[in-house]
């Protein structure tokens, strides 16, 4: 069998009914009884062809396993078009939530056979292997954001900043650290021992490299003496909390998203927002916090709504059925831009002036989309920065 990992989903591929629920119209819930997003599949929204949806990939995958298709470079690129946001996994069809797993398995086969990954993902792997982070920056600079903050390198709680907050948007890491301190949390950071969480490797089927980097991160966390790892980036959270145990088994520490700690601190009265904010506020749920194995959606709302007099409203597609921010601005720039603009439109439709996020990538993508549109009317802010302004 040429595609053993894809073939593990044989039953799902063969039973897929080609019913369209993953890209155009879900079975249930039937409005107005429940959540009903305007859009179901970001890739379909961009391409407007059913081939660019879970249905399309599943039909092509089946046909490949039937021996009626041959992989060729353009076909490989097609398999790498999905953003793996998992929106289709909500569709309650026969595939039953395995859509993302199917595409990831297919990509793993492609890598094993030497057909994949495509160039941007290959470049990610090379950069991460060489430097330990996804931007090709010097790892020695990884903790530059923490200069002057007196954060130790060992402790029971470790803050895992992630590549984006460490190198590209250091204010995110700084806000996170300030909020943790405000909550009275004693925490450490890994410094240059913190490596990329490996998300691009996992997404692109480079499973061997992913397992290696995951193991290195786990070793570094263990060496720091951590019992708890805190992340402020939803992608890092997903990888450490959900994906690492799949490849490494049970971890010797727990993984939490920072919003879980801050919400608790607010409940305990350790953090008390005193200043209000102007205008209407909404929250964008990162895919990685509400589906694909996680359910962190109460805590961010609890935090935001603790702000005195806040005018808060959820967007129409939230929690489990949230809409993707665009996810991969480097590897899938067009899809990412298209999807980010769609999500910004949701913010506008709600009449919100501020959209709060809890993920470095969501923050990046939404800001990128707003810049591209020349729209300065919406404030895009990460949850820690937002809260610091209210203390």
């Amino acid at each position, binding site marked *: 069998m040429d595609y053993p990992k894809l073939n593990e989903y044989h039953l799902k591929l063969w039973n897929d009914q*080609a019913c369209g629920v993953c890209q155009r119209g879900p079975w249930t819930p039937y409005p107005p009884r429940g959540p009903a997003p305007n859009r179901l599949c970001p890739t379909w929204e961009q391409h407007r062809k*059913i*081939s660019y949806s879970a249905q*399309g990939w599943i039909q092509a995958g089946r046909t490949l396993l039937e021996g009626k298709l041959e992989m060729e470079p353009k076909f490989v690129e097609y398999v790498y078009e999905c953003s793996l946001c998992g929106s289709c996994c909500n569709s309650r069809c026969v595939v039953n939530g395995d859509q993302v797993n199917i595409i990831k398995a297919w990509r793993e086969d492609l890598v094993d056979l030497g057909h994949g990954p495509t160039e941007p993902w290959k470049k990610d792997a090379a950069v991460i292997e060489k430097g330990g982070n996804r931007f090709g920056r010097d790892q020695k600079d990884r903790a530059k954001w923490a200069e002057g903050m007196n954060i130790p390198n060992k402790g029971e709680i470790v803050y895992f900043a992630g590549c984006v907050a460490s190198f590209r948007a250091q204010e995110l890491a700084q806000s996170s650290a300030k909020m943790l301190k405000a909550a009275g949390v004693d925490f450490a950071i890994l410094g240059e021992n913190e490596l990329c969480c490996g998300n691009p490797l996992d997404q692109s089927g480079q499973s061997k490299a992913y397992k290696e980097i995951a193991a290195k991160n786990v070793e570094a966390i263990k060496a720091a003496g951590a019992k708890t790892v805190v992340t402020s980036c939803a992608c890092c959270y997903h990888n450490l909390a959900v994906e690492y145990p799949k490849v490494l088994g049970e971890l010797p520490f727990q993984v939490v998203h920072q919003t879980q700690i801050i919400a608790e601190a607010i409940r305990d009265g350790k953090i008390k927002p005193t200043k209000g904010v102007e205008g209407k506020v909404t929250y964008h749920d990162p895919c990685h916090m509400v589906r694909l194995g996680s359910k962190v959606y109460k805590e961010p709302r609890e935090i935001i709504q603790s702000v005195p007099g806040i005018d808060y409203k959820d967007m129409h597609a939230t929690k489990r059925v949230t809409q993707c921010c665009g996810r991969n601005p480097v590897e899938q720039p067009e899809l990412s831009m298209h999807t980010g603009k769609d999500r910004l439109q949701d913010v506008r439709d709600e009449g919100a002036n501020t959209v709060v996020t809890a993920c470095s990538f969501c923050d990046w993508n939404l800001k990128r989309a707003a810049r591209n549109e020349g729209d300065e009317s919406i404030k895009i802010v990460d949850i820690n920065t937002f809260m610091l302004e209210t203390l």
Partner: protein
Amino acid sequence: MDQKLVNRLKEIVGEQWVTDDPWELCAYARAWSYELHRRPEVIVNPGSTQEVSEIMKLANETITPVNVRAGGTTNTGAALPREGGITLDLCRMDNPIELDEGSQSFSAQGGVTVYRIIKDLAAKGWKIPWKPEFGNAVTLAAWVNFNGMGVGGSVYGRVGDFLLGLEVVTPTGEIVHTGSSHFGKAAKFTRYQGTGPDLTGLFLESLGTMGVITEVYMRMYRIPEAKQQVDFAFPDEETVQEAVRLLVEANISYGICVTDDQMSITNQLPPAPGKWILSMLAEGWQEEVDFRVKKAHELCLQAGGRAFVEGERTAEWGSAASISLPYEPSRRQISCGGFHPIHKTKEIFDHYNAVGEKYGLNRGMGWWVDGNYANNFPIYVYDEETDMDRIFDIIQEVHDGWIEAGYVPDYPGPFPNMTKHIEKSYLELYRTVKRSIDPNNIMHRGMPPDMED
């Protein structure tokens, strides 16, 4: 397909909206039906009515078959091309829906999904009469092309009963408007007018053989204050048939749907609490709904049924959705529905059941009421390793029996092909009209009724 033709299509819609990559064609070669893969040669995504017109002119000039692909949710197989050619995917044509609250109607492009219509209308307190039974991915144009039917048909009828007009591109590329908007300065508020016969009907239920529906004008209704479902169990066909007759005569229901106990077994649902389950839906003002529900109890008990007792699972109308379970070997369902007078229900059921017994097929019978008649929706379930010729023989046998009982099919094919049962003069009139509008027979070529004897 000739590369020159592909290039000309690219000139019309832009390169990114034309594809003939084999891996992409796979998605368009399958629909939610028993049909085996039928692959188009090229997929084109037009963005406007004008582009559709240019594509049709080109296809007509080069005598290239054209099939329009919508949600792909019909289990009849009609979503797939009969002969390669161009498959048009109208999903780019989904401009915002235009509401005309003054005439309680809306217009939308053909590529808009019913899902979006439901959402957008609901946001303003409006609704379409009922949702498609095979999922919300269906596009508005396809809904018209099939003259969709559903559980709300008891009071609202089928799609044709609340359709107000269309914008259509004919197979030769002309753009035509039907309904009131074709006249003077009239808006899109009525399907009928004094300017000749109802040309909307020419495209309604035409299964994509008469033209490309690019815009649909439709009635909308206020979301009612109250809605309620009541369920009853019946011991046999006679009693459930009588109950339906009484309910229709009383004209108190929004929808009536009936399923047999086999449907629960086939769909791996908990056992049905009776041989037949009848669900009646009522909607309207609260007092009105209360009255209708009370009356339904009286009439169903009078017919020999009993109301569900507490704890009995509320009947779910979800045959199509719940068939989507993982089986090894994988399963397919074949539906062989049609329409029959309510008093023929027992006869229709008995024949379908006898055929199912004879061949040992998993099955389930369901039907709902469209105005004064029943739309039966029986399914047989088989696995992919079953010889399809055998399945087709079985379906033919079912239809042969039903034809004797006086039913009419919901579609003329593709299987079984019903052409031979059509009155000769009717068939000739149909062929004359089809030749006149589609002289080269490019639209959904091979779809019955047959153009030649």
